[in-house]
């Protein structure tokens, strides 16, 4: 083997000394004008390959050689039987880099979906209660200064509500420390929220909105649920972790920009928290023999109030980022009936038009539904035959067994299934800005038709038209004639999923 040129440094002076190195058995020979070394390979520390950087051979006494003849040096190492470490081999190949990308992205998503809530929950449950005292004081002070006014409720009424609530048995063994305070909510209107230290704030407007005290107790139970599960604390911890990760990662890019994604990444969790608090409230109401619908009723009224103020459209931002999104869904879960908003729908929220005109798209859909799916059929063949004979419907060019009609530029379709009859429509047809009607609207209309919700509601991830995932809620009804019906309404991407109303007949 040829000697390899290298530069030797003795570790005592900055003087570079040109040398050559070569193997001699299991020893490395360094040979130069003023250097002659003969070192056992085992005692050497050899740096990993790092691109164009020199390989460094370090001797036990602090001297070292820099080798820039990479190919020849690698040959020498192979001859000596010295192999690259595992990490070096991973770093050398694009396929491992790709695997690392996949792993990293998967871990980031999994961490966000499961790891983060789990960690926050774990930490939140372990923080001692006395640490929470005073947390939220500043929030309340902020609201008091900028939004709230002192409550106009008589002190006796405040005390009565607090005592009534204190008398209830909570559904769990332990009760978090709590303190109910009343405020005039001002622009916030009818609302209630819980702070980490156990303060539950109730606005006068909420008390006024309630038709029975049970409803207020339901809302208080919901807030107690937030406290029991330490939701605001978990949010806080999650926020800290997200902020920490993002600023670590983006630190050099911009520290201010780093705060923004953190806030966006947080919002998704609040939906789950609302559900948990709802369940807690439901348990609490049941445990105290109070009507379980109390919470649903006041929620429906709160929703109607908000809808008239902000318009009913399914603004994607409000739905995805709002902390109380999909209120209709929550009401249905709680066994209630979403309030039909009497506001007309328009792309721009307009509070002046709070009068009751019907939604043409929704009416058309229900008409088409009534033609066949609401009719009695005993088997699939007779339904198929009836569809074929119906002059109003034309057979779809693309799909066997599907018949459609176009009205207001939207296609409504009826199809036969093994088990029944389905009517479907693309809620947001091509060129339209938003869904043609909301879940609340169709739910309200179905209830008016005499359909009853069975409470069997699920949210599923379905494949959309373009293959992406769509969140779909399935709501089960018993029709006025006692048949089972399921409404599948896409909660997001109304332009990417056919909303279906299926009646089980055969």
């Amino acid at each position: 083997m040829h000697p390899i040129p290298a530069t030797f440094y003795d570790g005592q002076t900055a003087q570079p000394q040109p040398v050559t190195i070569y193997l001699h058995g299991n020893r490395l020979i360094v040979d130069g004008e003023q250097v002659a070394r003969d070192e056992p390979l085992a005692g050497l520390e050899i740096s990993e390959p790092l691109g164009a950087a020199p390989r460094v051979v370090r001797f036990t006494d602090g001297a070292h050689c820099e080798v820039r003849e990479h190919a020849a040096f690698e040959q020498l190492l192979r001859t000596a039987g010295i192999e690259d470490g595992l990490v070096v081999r991973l770093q050398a190949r694009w396929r491992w880099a790709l695997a690392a990308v996949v792993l990293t992205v998967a871990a980031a998503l999994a961490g966000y979906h499961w790891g983060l809530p789990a960690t926050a929950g774990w930490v939140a449950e372990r923080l001692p209660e006395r640490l929470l005292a005073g947390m939220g004081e500043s929030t309340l002070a902020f609201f008091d200064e900028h939004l709230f006014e002192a409550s106009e409720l008589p002190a006796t009424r405040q005390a009565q509500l607090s005592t009534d609530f204190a008398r209830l048995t909570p559904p769990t063994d332990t009760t978090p420390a709590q303190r109910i305070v009343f405020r005039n909510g001002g622009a916030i209107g009818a609302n209630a929220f819980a702070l980490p230290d156990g303060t539950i704030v109730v606005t006068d407007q909420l008390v006024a909105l309630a038709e029975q005290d049970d409803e207020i107790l339901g809302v208080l139970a919901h807030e107690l649920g937030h406290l029991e599960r330490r939701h605001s604390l978990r949010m806080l911890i999650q926020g800290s972790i997200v902020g920490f990760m993002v600023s670590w990662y983006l630190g050099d890019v911009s520290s201010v920009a780093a705060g923004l994604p953190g806030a966006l990444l947080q919002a998704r969790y609040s939906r789950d928290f609302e559900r948990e608090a709802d369940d807690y409230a439901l348990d609490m109401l049941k445990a105290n023999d109070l009507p379980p619908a109390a919470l649903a009723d006041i929620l429906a009224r709160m929703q109607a109030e908000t809808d008239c103020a902000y318009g009913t459209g399914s603004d994607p931002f409000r739905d995805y980022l709002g902390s109380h999104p999909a209120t209709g869904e929550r009401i249905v879960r709680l066994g209630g009936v979403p309030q039909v908003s009497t506001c007309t729908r328009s792309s721009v929220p307009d509070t002046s038009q709070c009068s009751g005109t019907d939604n043409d798209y929704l009416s058309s859909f229900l008409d088409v539904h009534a033609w066949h799916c609401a009719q009695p059929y005993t088997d699939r063949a007779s339904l198929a035959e009836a569809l074929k004979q119906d002059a109003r419907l034309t057979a779809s060019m693309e799909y066997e067994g599907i018949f459609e009609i176009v009205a207001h530029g939207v296609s409504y379709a009826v199809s036969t299934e093994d088990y029944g009859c389905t009517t479907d429509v693309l809620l947001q047809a091509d060129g339209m800005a938003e869904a043609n009607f909301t879940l609340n609207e169709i739910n309200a209309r179905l209830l008016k038709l005499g359909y009853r919700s069975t409470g069997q509601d699920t949210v599923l991830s379905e494949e959309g038209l373009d293959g992406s995932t769509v969140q779909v809620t399935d709501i089960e009804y018993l029709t006025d004639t006692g048949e089972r019906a399921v409404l599948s309404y896409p909660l997001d991407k109304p332009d990417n999923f056919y909303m279906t109303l299926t009646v089980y007949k055969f």
Partner: protein
Amino acid sequence: MPLDTATADAQRLSFTGEGPEYFRIWIVNIALSILTLGVYSAWAKVRRLKYFYLNTTLADSSFDFHGNPMAILKGRIIAVVLLLAYQFSSAASPRLALLAMALLALVFPWLIVRSLRFKLHNSSHRGLRFSFRGSTGQGYINFLLFPLLALVTLYLMSPLAHQRIKRFQHGNSWYANTTFDFSAGSGRFFTLYLKLLGLAVLVIALVTGGAALLFPFELANPDELGDEARAHMATFILASLAGIYLMLFLLLGPWFSARVQNLVWNHTTLGPHRLVSDVQARALFWIYLTNFLGILATLGLFKPFADIRLARYRLEHIGLVPAGSLDDFMADQQQATSATGEEAADLFDFDISF
């Protein structure tokens, strides 16, 4: 002082790192750190630093990094605890945050001095170590007292604080048996900050003026305006703020960074040898901008390429003007140090360069 004219005989740093190569190291590092729940990140850091050090060459010899991953791991754990505690307390209550802040301020100077020691003691060139010999007491004066002075004078004294920090860092650094010296007086920092202020005012005036032209609005009490006029005003304010932020961050950021690097390095000497830096704000601006867009567009995957580009530009615009042979440095006694401070400072993103 530009390298090309005044100092044709300057020995420039050269950097041989490559984006694709470093990308693989970076992503494998991240994946392994995830698989080991963060433990590997200390080893990852050593690999990363070795990549940058060994690929940096001065006068035909590479730099090298000798940090011990275990020491870094220890520091990393402390840093994560400190940062999480701070994040959490600041979110929880302002009083707690203030307390945490005060506590951090008290340990910071100590951590920074430790960190400087660790970083320099573990850096070498031609087999000889660098070292940092500033005392912890001096650290408290320069990293706590002067920043506090800047704070109570409403940042009027920031240039002085900045100068003291740089003087402390550079003036107490050693290579082998030779000390670095730092000769830039505070006057130069005041001049630089004055220029920065002038540019900032200019940028803000231009952006708000431009926004007012693009989004005309009625200047009045918002309460007395109609919805439409109020929307116009909101658009104007949002556009101005976004514009100011982007301009300050993208334009003034690189400009200031370039000027500081040049000022600091052009006034640093190593024994008889002089250091020079000729970083240009325009070039740095372009790198910042394209890096920012690249990272944004690739959801972060461009980060290693961005790191390499920035390092290459910054390093290759630093040089050393030798006054005599560079072979005459002699080893000095070496001291061991712990990485604790180094790590905490890394996470808090302090500017401890080189």
